[in-house]
C-alpha cells in the first residue's frame, strides 16, 4: 500500500499530460483549450473537496452520516439524469424515484448477500458506482423516449385513435427505450476483462489483492450494474413517458 502514495511533485509533473491535450487542441484549432483547463480545474477542486469529505465520513463511521452521503450521491445523479431529458415537461421526481429505488434495492441485495458491509468505505464508493450507472441509464432512456416519440409518432397516434389506453399505446416505445438504456451495460458485461479491466478490479489489483479474488468482486459488480440499470431504466421510462401527454391522453410536446 506504501507504493500507492503519489507525491505532490509527481502530481504536478503529471499535469504535463493535460498540456498534451491542450497542445493538440491548439495545434488542430479545435477550440477546446479553455474548456479543457476549466474541466481540469473543476476536477481538481471537486476531487480535493470530495477527498476531505470522504476522509471525514470514513473516520467518523456514523450510520446516519453514511446514509446522508448516499442520499447526496443519489440526488446529484438524479439532477444530472433529469438534465439529460430533452422533454421540457420533465420532472426531477421521476429521476429521483428511479435512482432511489434502483440504488437502494441493489445496495440492499449486496448487503443481504454479505458481499459488502455497512461501512462507509464500502457503501459510499458502491453507491457512487450504482447511482452513476443508473444516471447514465436514465439519461439514455429519456433520449430514446424522445427519439421514439418522434420516429414512432404515427403508429402511436393510430393506437390512441383506436381507443387504446396510454400504456398500451406506448408499449413499443417503452420497450425500445428500456432496451436502449440497458444495452450498453449488457454489451460491457460481454467484453469485461477482454477489452478493459474495470475500475473496481483494477483498483483491487492496484492495492495488491490477488487478481483471482479481484474478479469475484468484478463479477458481483457486473451483476449489480445489470440490476441497477434495469431497475432505473424501467422506473424512469414508465414515469417519464407520461410527461409527453396531457390529461386528454393527447400527445403534447
Amino acid at each position, binding site marked *: 500500500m506504501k507504493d500507492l502514495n503519489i507525491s505532490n511533485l509527481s502530481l504536478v509533473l503529471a499535469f504535463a499530460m493535460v498540456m498534451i491535450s491542450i497542445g493538440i487542441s491548439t495545434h488542430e484549432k479545435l477550440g477546446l483549450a479553455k474548456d479543457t483547463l476549466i474541466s481540469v480545474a473543476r476536477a481538481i477542486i471537486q476531487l480535493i473537496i470530495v477527498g476531505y469529505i470522504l476522509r471525514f465520513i470514513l473516520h467518523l463511521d456514523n450510520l446516519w452520516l453514511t446514509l446522508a452521503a448516499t442520499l447526496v450521491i443519489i440526488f446529484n445523479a438524479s439532477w444530472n439524469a433529469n438534465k439529460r431529458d430533452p422533454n421540457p415537461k420533465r420532472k426531477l421526481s421521476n429521476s429521483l424515484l428511479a435512482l432511489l429505488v434502483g440504488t437502494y434495492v441493489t445496495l440492499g441485495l449486496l448487503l443481504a448477500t454479505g458481499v459488502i458491509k455497512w461501512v462507509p468505505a464500502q457503501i459510499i464508493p458502491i453507491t457512487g458506482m450504482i447511482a452513476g450507472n443508473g444516471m447514465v441509464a436514465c439519461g439514455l432512456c429519456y433520449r430514446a423516449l424522445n427519439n421514439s416519440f418522434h420516429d414512432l409518432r404515427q403508429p402511436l397516434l393510430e*393506437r390512441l*385513435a383506436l381507443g387504446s389506453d396510454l400504456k398500451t399505446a406506448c408499449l413499443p416505445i417503452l420497450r425500445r427505450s428500456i432496451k436502449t438504456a440497458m444495452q450498453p451495460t449488457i454489451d460491457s458485461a460481454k467484453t469485461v476483462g477482454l477489452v478493459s479491466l474495470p475500475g473496481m478490479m483494477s483498483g483491487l489489483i492496484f492495492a495488491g489483492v490477488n487478481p483471482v479474488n479481484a474478479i469475484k468482486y468484478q463479477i458481483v459488480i457486473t451483476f449489480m450494474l445489470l440490476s441497477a440499470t434495469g431497475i432505473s431504466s424501467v422506473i424512469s421510462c414508465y414515469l417519464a413517458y407520461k410527461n409527453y401527454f396531457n390529461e386528454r391522453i393527447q400527445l403534447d410536446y
Partner: protein
Amino acid sequence: MDIIELNKVSYQVEDKQILKEIDLHVAEGQRITLTGPSGSGKSTILKLVSSLISPTQGQINFQGKDVAQLDPISYRRQVSYCFQQPSLFGTTVADNLRFPFELRDEPFNQQQAVELLWQVDLDESYLNKKIETLSGGEKQRVALIRNLLFPPKVLLLDEVTTGLDENSKAIVHKLIRNYHQEGTTILEVTHDATELDLANYLITIKEGKRVK
C-alpha cells in the same frame, strides 16, 4: 339530432392559425366529404373530431355532450379515425386484427376477422401473412377493417384511398358504402375525383376556413 357538432372551432399552433371558427354539424347516419387544397386544415378537423388534439377555441360536441368532458378512450372507440397511409402493428395481419380485442379485454373473434377480410377481398390465409409482404392497397384494407371490428358510430377517413390502385379503391369504396348504409356516420377527407363526384354532402375548406 347531430351526432357531431363543431361550434366556432379554431386551432392554432404557436403563431400559426390552422383552423378559424369552423362550424360543422354532422347528423347521425350522414356522410360528409371534406375537400380543399393541401394544408387547408382538413386532416386537422378529423384529428380534432377524434380528440387526438383539442381546439384552442370553440367546442366539439358528440351526441350533444362536450367532447372535452368525455372519457377520451371510450370516445375514440365510438369515433374511429383511419389514417392516410396507416401503419400496421406487430408482425402479422392477425396481430393487427387482434389489437382491438386486446384493448377491450375480449377474446379474439377469428370468424369475424375472416368475414371482414373477405369483405375487402382478402382470404383467410392473410391472417398469418407478414405485414411487410402486403401491398399498399392490402395494408390500407387491413387498417380499415381494424377500425371496423367493433363498428364505431362515426368513422373518420383521412384520404384512405390515396395511392391505391383502382381495384383496391373500388373494394374500399364498397366497404365504406356498406357501413354507411348500415347506419355508420362518415366524415371523410378526399381529393379523389370519383369520390368527390359520389359525395352527397361536400364541404370545402380553404386556408383554415369553411368556404362552402
